[in-house]
Structure formats: structure tokens, C-alpha cells
């Protein structure tokens, strides 16, 4: 069937529309990328390539302990946090999947009630203070370590595994923990991968917890450091006019912008490396959730 004229116009409009969208999505990142390599990162310019190519800002990050240390901190909490969160949630979900276990209903309610109601910011803060968790890496890992939603998602996947598989192992006398570790876990790779990626991204992006609990700059995740650099740059901008004669301050201001851009690009690298897997498993994660629980 030949498409009508109206349909052709719609098709052309649609392609133009999504070309615009794709550009609008890409340009912000390309602009920041070009600025991060631009030694003359100033003035109004729509150029998406550096005017004077330089790796100055990247070298600055690699040589300044105050800037690269936060990246190492983020890597540390991401690795430890993700590993711990995935293991504890996968293991907890295994128990949740046993509908006939005495206490099952109690566990479910224990997980649901905090979704409705919580102590709020100050009671949590005072508790963590009493536990000596202020200004520690531990609090960055603990916060958000276990989420009921993730456990229900994993449990739903376990429920879709044919019961005959773990049953045969149990006849062989295997303990529940062994069944979980050697049969259920290997069979649940898609959902475990989805949760691991999800946790990895959220630990890498940790910000609010650090704002609340971390005081020492040497323990900052990179997000806090980056925000600091950006806000300094913003404050300077509001009195840019006053900077006209002050070369030193002006240079510092420019450094901040280029530095911020380079930090943004560096912080995106792990996300971009993980992105193909994110795309693959997130879609899967969205789907496994809809399997009946």
C-alpha cells in the first residue's frame, strides 16, 4: 500500500523532530566535553570543539589530591556497597520467596510499614550520630543498603524458577543456604545483574547522604566535591563585572569552569562503560518485575 501524502509529511516531521531531540540530548554533553579540553574556555561560543586544545584540567585533577581523592572514595563505596547490597538483598529475597515459612507475613509487613512512615531526617541523623557513623565511609554504604523494592523484584524472579530444580538438590540433603548459593543464584543472573547495575549507579551517584553526614573533605565522594567547584564558579559569576580588573580571580574562575567540566566528563566514564549492560539489563529488570509474584 502506498503511504498517503499526509503520512509522508508526518514521517518527515517525525524524523526532523527526533533529529532535534537527539541533538538536544547530545549537545550539552559535547559542549561540556569540548570545554573540558579547552584552554580558552571562555566567552560566548557555539563551537563544540576546543579552540585551544589542552589537557590542563585533566592533569590538574590527576595531580591534585583534593580532587582525585573524592573519585577514589566514590569508587570504594560503589564497589563495597554494591557487593554488599546485592548479596544481602539476594539472600533476603530467598527467604521472602518461601511463602509457607512461619513469620512470612510478619516479614512482609516489616518491609511495608517503613514505606508509609518514617522518623524523618533529624531522628535518623541523631541515631547515626549516636552510632558514631557521622563522617564515616560506613554511613555512605549503609544508607540505602537494603531496599524492599529490590528484594521483591528479586523474589519475583526466584518464583519464576521451576521448583523442581532446588527440590532435587534438597533431596540430596543440601542446606537452604547452599541451594541459594549454588542453584538459585546462578539461575537468577539477569535479575542479579539488573540489581547490581542499579546499586552501582546509585552508589556512584551518592550525594544527599554525603551532604548530610560527611564533613571532612578527604572523605567526600566526587559528587560533593564537584558541587563545591560548581557553586564557587556560580558565586563568582554573579559578580563577574567586578572581576574585570582582577586577573588572578578571573583565572581562578575560569579554571573552575574548565575543571568542573573535566570532572563531569571523568565521572561519566564509569556510567558510559556500564551503559550497554544497563540498557540490556534494565529493560530486562523492568520486565521480570511484571512476572506474577
Amino acid at each position: 500500500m502506498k503511504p498517503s501524502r499526509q503520512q509522508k509529511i508526518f514521517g518527515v516531521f517525525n524524523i526532523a523532530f527526533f533529529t532535534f531531540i537527539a541533538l538536544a540530548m547530545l549537545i550539552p554533553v559535547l559542549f561540556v566535553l569540548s570545554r573540558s579540553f579547552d584552554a580558552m574556555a571562555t566567552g560566548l561560543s557555539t563551537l563544540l570543539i576546543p579552540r585551544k586544545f589542552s589537557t590542563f584540567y585533566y592533569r590538574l585533577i590527576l595531580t591534585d589530591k583534593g580532587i582525585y581523592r573524592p573519585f577514589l572514595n566514590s569508587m570504594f563505596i560503589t564497589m563495597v556497597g554494591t557487593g554488599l547490597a546485592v548479596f544481602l538483598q539476594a539472600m533476603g529475597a530467598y527467604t521472602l520467596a518461601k511463602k509457607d515459612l512461619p513469620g512470612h507475613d510478619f516479614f512482609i509487613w516489616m518491609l511495608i510499614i517503613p514505606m508509609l512512615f518514617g522518623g524523618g531526617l533529624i531522628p535518623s541523623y541523631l541515631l547515626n550520630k549516636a552510632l558514631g557513623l557521622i563522617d564515616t565511609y560506613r554511613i555512605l554504604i549503609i544508607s540505602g543498603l537494603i531496599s524492599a523494592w529490590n528484594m521483591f523484584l528479586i523474589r519475583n524472579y526466584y518464583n519464576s524458577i521451576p521448583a523442581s530444580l532446588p527440590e532435587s538438590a534438597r533431596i540430596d540433603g543440601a542446606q537452604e543456604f547452599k541451594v541459594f548459593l549454588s542453584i538459585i543464584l546462578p539461575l537468577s543472573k539477569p535479575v542479579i545483574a539488573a540489581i547490581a547495575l542499579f546499586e552501582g549507579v546509585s552508589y556512584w551517584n551518592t550525594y544527599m547522604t554525603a551532604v548530610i553526614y560527611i564533613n571532612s573533605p578527604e572523605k567526600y565522594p566526587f559528587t560533593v566535591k564537584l558541587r563545591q567547584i560548581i557553586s564557587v564558579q556560580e558565586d563568582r559569576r554573579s559578580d563577574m563585572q567586578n572581576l574585570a580588573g582582577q586577573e588572578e580571580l578571573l583565572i581562578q574562575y575560569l579554571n573552575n569552569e574548565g575543571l568542573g567540566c573535566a570532572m563531569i566528563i571523568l565521572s561519566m566514564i564509569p556510567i558510559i562503560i556500564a551503559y550497554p549492560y544497563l540498557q540490556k539489563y534494565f529493560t530486562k529488570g523492568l520486565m521480570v518485575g511484571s512476572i506474577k509474584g
Partner: protein
Amino acid sequence: MEIATKTGIASDIKTSKKKKRRIFTSANIMLYLMFLPVVIYYIIWAYVPMPGIALAFADFRTGGFKRWVGLENFEFIFSLPFFWKAFANTWIYIGLRYLIGFPAPIIFAILLNELRQQKFKKTVQTISTLPHFLSWVIVSGIWITLLSPSAGFINALRHAIGLEPYFYVAEFRTFPLTFQVISEWKGIGYSSIIYLAALAAIDPEMYESAVLDGAGRLRQIWYITLPGLKPTILVLFVLSFRGILNLFEPLYVFQNSANIKTTEVLDTYIYKVGLVQARYSVSTAMGLFKSTVGLFFTLLANYFSKKVTEDGRGILF
């Protein structure tokens, strides 16, 4: 991710039969041990802070507990103009989220689904989903750079067509709209995934017979695509009520002295009163107010979800 709850997370409670069982068999003990870390975690970090809301009715500062004050803290916060301002601002962002943020990914998915060039479609999807995974700090960093009046790309475009530079991030009047556009940049691609999956499930034969009946693209969208999406739209609409007031990170990272009039929302204000000014009781009272409003919306979501899910079960119970 949230669609997981379609079937109700407490769904199996109602189906489990009551019968006499031995509780502490060796298998069960192992299962309890496996769940123990979750129980400990929940008791310490979810349940222990709960009675802490009592602080809202006390005079409690960094020096410690002074006395019970009844509703004085509430009278105080309700008399604060800035508290109401922060409350109103919260609703500006929520309003824009429903006005623009909710329909945008639906339209995006429908139009993307109409693209016949598969490679192009895939490319657009790949590019538009990425920003979802970036933290708000990164997103704000990217956009503050892009919107800079002295060196940003957007103002360079404005300059090129002879317009004055506009300080998007500092203009408090237009900031909520600017923020919504940035939110779309971050989230539209990811949010549309679930709609695209729903679109893929619509029977292609329905379109074929519609074409035979002489229906154009727009009529097909209106009579086949939209009704096909309806269940997904309803479920996601209901789910979106959860955590509706949680706006700390997205707004805190954009705050500066110029835009504070419209970027101060309940969450950021509670943080500042509580931890920057260390007025623990006042902040807890504000938090209690916020979580009461939030609870109302969560219960509303649960109530409505019973009407929109196939099995009539709520998202929570």
C-alpha cells in the same frame, strides 16, 4: 522498575493458608539466619528512628532535651512565611511534573514508535536514555555550564540571533520551567521505555485492519495506540504518587542566592533548619508535616491502584 509492584507486594499474604507447622526445623532456622541481616537493618535504620518524631513535640536542640512543648513547634512553623513559601514551591514543581513531565514520555514513546527507520530509532533511544543514569549533581553541572550567561552554549545561540543573554539558572521566576526542561532531558528517554514496551504488545493486526478501513496515522494513534496504552498510563500515574514530595537532590544542586525564592522546597528547607541551623525540633515538626502529606498520597496511590490493576490488588497492600 516500579512496575514490579503491579501484582502487589503483599499479594501472597492473603493466599497463604493457616495450618499447624513446625517453626524451628533446621531448614527454617537457616532461612531465618539468611533474613537476619535484613531484620537487623530494618530495626536499626527504619524502626528505631520512628519514635524520634516525638521530637516534634519537644524543645530539643544541640544541647539536648529541654521540655515538652505540645504543639508549639507546629504553631511556630505554620506562622513562618518561608515555610509556606517552601510548601507552595514544592507544589509548583509537582504541578509542572504532572502538566509536562507525565505526558511527555507518553508522547515521546508514541512518536518514536511511529519511526520506521529502525537504526535511527535505536540511536535516538540509546542517546536519550543515558542521562537518566547521571546524578543530579552531574546534570546540574552540565546545565549550569550550558546555560551560563557569559560562556554557555544556549546564550551563545541567543547572542547569534541578536538576543540579550538570559541567566536561566538565576532567574527565579522562570527557574521552575527551566528545571522541568532539564528534568525532561534527564528522564524522558528512560521513562518512555515502559511505554514503548506496552506499545510493542499492541496487536499489529489492529493497525492493519484500521488501515484497510482507511484510518490515517493520527486516527490510528487516537483509536488504537492510546487505548492500548491506557492500563500502563494508569498504573504509572498511580505509582507516581509515591514519594511525590521528595525533591531534595534535584533542587538542592541548583540552589544559589539568586534563585532561592523558587528553589527552596520542603525537603531543602527541612534540611537547612534541621542541620544547618541545628533547630532539631522545628525541623522534625516540618518533617512530620511533610510525611503526613506524603502518607496521604501513598495511601491514595494504594487505593487507586486497586482500581487499575488487573487483579484488584493495591501496590502496597
